[in-house]
């Protein structure tokens, strides 16, 4: 259960990072 919770936390962290990165790349593509 604890392992599953840790995995979930890690996944949430990754999602936040990837989502922000995607938005920044959209910003750059808008400049193009």
């Amino acid at each position, binding site marked *: 259960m604890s392992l599953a919770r840790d995995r979930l936390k890690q996944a949430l962290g990754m999602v936040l990072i990837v989502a922000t*990165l995607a938005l920044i790349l959209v*910003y750059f593509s808008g400049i193009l």
Partner: protein
Amino acid sequence: MSAGTGLSFRMKFYILENSMSKQRTRPIGRALNWGAVLTLIAAYAVGYAIRNREILPLLFEQAPEAAAMDKIRDHPLVLASEAPGQGPEAARYYTIGRAQGWGGPLSIGLCFNEEGRILQVLVLDHNETLPFYYRLEKKGFFEQFESRHVSEPLWPGEDVDTVTQATVSSEAFTEAIRQGSHVLGREIFGLELRERQPRWRIGLNEGFLVLLFVGAGISFLGKLRMVRYLVMAAAFFFLGFHLNASLSIGHFGSVLLGYVPHVVTHPFWWILVCGALLAAFILKRNLYCHALCPFGSLQELNSRISGSNLPVARGFIRVARALPYALTWLALIFVFLTSSPTSGAYEPFPTLFGLEGMEIQWLILASVILGSLFIKRFFCRFFCPVGIVLDLIVMARCRLGNLRKEKTECP
């Protein structure tokens, strides 16, 4: 960012790498580094080749009738025409004025009537951060110049209203408009218009900024946590909401492109940029990120409020660690190719503190604020280009110290 030592996450990783007994060769890493440097040089060269583009076509785009006008003077440009059969009262003049703004050079086209009154102000080219520029438009800054005469001084604070939180941009546009107006006054109307010499603009803002740097230095050298928190709070309100003057990749882009404002008229810019760079070089610590960055302060506050610090998967952390380097490289590529320092400024600082921005900038801000509730210093660790530049200076300084075998402050 460590509370007491001023060591960023990247610095800790660098220290770990250097503490190993033998440095492993990492050909892929070296190849990537060289590739990044060479592509940046290529982008700079391409941008330089197209940087000195003609402004005239930009004027003709917005004012097609100017293309048929006679050129009275080249630098600054003055065009004149008189519609045939309509007499001198149909005379029209166009001029172009230029100045150095916050983000780089800007150019203004002005249309005058036969009396020397401004009919239209055309923004031909600028490099101002978009939220600041939108603020000027929203506040009707350019409209105040319509019907102004070539004999008027057009001096900020006297007969020109500047826009709060966009003062530097206001003054730069005013300077360009004054230049374009006065050149017509001298050339066509024979007026004797003397340009004022710039005076030093040292005021409370500059003094307070110096105090903040001193406070940050004291908090770092004395390892005084409470002083650091005090400086962070002061910087959050002063650099953040009051002046909206956070350090950005656009500042470093300006330096690299040679778009450096005059120190007499923009001492604040000089104190901010040189203060951060010198602190990194002399103290061998990233003082700005440690205690002065208002956005970093907000993120620390968020993570303290939430009490959460999500772990990042081990396999992913290697990729995540390279992210800010890749984004800094990408930002600088855009800066060099467009010759516009603000084009690579993807940080959400002006959006938050100026409450102005495009939709995508608001989305980035929301994502970062959400992320900072769950991961400590979320933007700093994975996205911020300012931290990368300052940390690279610290690393380079430490390496220089090691080469010279000097007693180094680097751990």
